[in-house]
């Protein structure tokens, strides 16, 4: 089977993120990294491949993003993907969830995967929704926030937490699964894998190459519009204590609790 893993380049966690007021889009300048949630999806793909319950011919990392996003693909390949596909097109800039999901589905369609894996959320957009959007376009069954995947008889047996406890769900392939960060501890890439990453095959695709209709992506294809950005309602800042002398710190905490009649 063929597994496609959706990955994304996001601003590094240490970078102070801001919205560019002229475009109402996230300012993506500065240090970037592979979305940390995606490393769990890559690890899940590798575990299925190495697990042997079903033969996996290849693991393909797929991204949509500007040219710089190739670095996220290099990291994905270093973590075990056999090759990668990058969808880059100026027409895609400014796509909302609806338009992004459509574009990703189109590029995935060109790969005909048996399983699409992705992380539960992106570190920057925090939308949690792309997997389910992509699945409906691809007409595949789907589950999000999965924390355990077993392959038996060519089907997936998935576990996740939902509103009322843990659900166990059996899913036929092909399918789209978004994984929670509790599913595994991603491995570290070996130095050899990092050095070799740039040599693995990389396909560059433009929107037209995968049949994306220009009117359905970018700002023109987006169905939501950010009208304005506002600061959140002011909350009185809490008091902060740096623990230098623990006895003193504890005294302060006890006094604070006592003042509020909590002890």
């Amino acid at each position, binding site marked *: 089977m063929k597994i496609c893993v959706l990955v994304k380049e996001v601003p590094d966690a240490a970078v102070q*993120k801001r*919205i560019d007021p002229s475009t109402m889009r996230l300012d993506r300048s500065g240090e970037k990294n592979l979305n940390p949630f995606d490393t769990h999806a890559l690890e899940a793909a590798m575990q299925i491949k190495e697990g042997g319950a079903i033969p996996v011919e290849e693991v393909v990392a797929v991204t949509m993003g500007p040219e710089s996003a190739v670095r996220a693909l290099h990291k994905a390949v270093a973590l075990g993907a056999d090759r990668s596909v990058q969808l880059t097109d100026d027409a895609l800039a400014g796509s*909302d*969830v609806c338009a992004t999901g*459509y574009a990703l589905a189109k590029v995935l369609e060109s790969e005909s995967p048996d399983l699409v894996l992705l992380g539960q959320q992106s570190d920057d957009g*925090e*939308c*949690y*929704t*792309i*997997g*389910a*959007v*992509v*699945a*409906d376009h691809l*007409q*595949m*069954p*789907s*589950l*999000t926030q999965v924390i355990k995947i077993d392959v038996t008889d060519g089907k997936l047996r998935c576990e*996740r*937490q*939902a*509103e*009322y*406890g*843990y*659900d*166990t*769900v*059996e*899913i*036929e392939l092909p*399918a789209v699964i978004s994984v929670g960060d*509790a599913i595994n501890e991603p491995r570290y890439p070996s130095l050899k894998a990092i050095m070799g990453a740039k040599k693995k095959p990389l396909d560059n695709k433009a929107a037209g190459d995968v049949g994306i209709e220009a009117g359905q992506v970018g700002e023109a294809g987006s*169905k*939501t*519009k*950010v*009208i304005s*950005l506002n*600061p*959140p309602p002011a909350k009185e800042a*809490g*008091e*902060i204590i*740096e*623990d230098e002398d*623990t006895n003193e*710190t*504890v*005294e302060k*905490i*006890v006094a604070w*609790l*006592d003042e*509020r009649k*909590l002890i």
Partner: protein
Amino acid sequence: MPGILVYALHDDEGNFNKNSLGAISEAAKLAGEIGGACSALVVGDVADDAAAGLGNYGAAKVYRAKGVPEGLAQPIIDAMAKVITDNGISYALFGGGLLGFEIGAGLTARLGAGVTMEVTAVKVQDGKLVAERPILQDSEIADVGYVSEPGIIIGRLNAFDAKESGGSAAVEDVEVELSAWSTKATMVQRGEQRGADVNIEDADILVGGGRGLGAAEGFKLAEELAESMGGAVAATRAVVDAGWYPYATQIGKTGKTVAPKLYLAAGISGAIQHKVGMQNSENILAINKDPNAPIFEFSDLGVVGDLHKIVPKLTEAIKAKKGG
């Protein structure tokens, strides 16, 4: 008719989810402002009076799809899409929760509809709905409008309060043809409880433990501290999924919502998923070694330091004070 449709989730005993009821009340209020009606969709074997009872929260009409199973998103996407299309409904609103996210996202693809998620408030501008969505770790709020209808709004957990208005809804059964791919996922077991059953919702004092406790054994520190104050222990999703503490103690998006007099967060970073379950606590005290942890942005007292040093001494000090 510019109506708003809400999906009303229920458990295996037929109890409706309180976030769904909150979404109905919110939709009823908004529908009034845009000159439409609020309707709700229920799936599965929901009794007549239970369905009609959603009128008490503001639904004028309840669509019931008996042939559609509860618990997995895709069959419900089929049902929602049909009701929205057949009745020319303008917006779909979801209370917080995992299924709402999945159904709302699927509808986006199915109907070519705009979607906004983690919405904390909805307002009306020029007869249309505008969603308020906190972004970038809640540091800014984006006002998001819809270019076309229908529009999908997925609320953040506990964003909308259920309000009883005393009405009764008309119930209409709908036949839904399921998409081929909607039948390819099957629920094997729903809502399994793992670990001990603990009641944390009634506690006045809660000590919440996160990854910062280091290991399952680290919860002993939290338990001793809770015991010294006569409180109970709660946990984050990360440590519950890691098997450190029982599911029944989990707070947040897929866990419980609490509002004790004191919430003492030990080694909890304060990710949005956890925050939504405890931010209404009267007093929040956080101990975390990372000065940049988001929890310090909404705690009343933040202690930057090693909880393994601070918590044992704090437990002793509280015991001494109580004894003295």
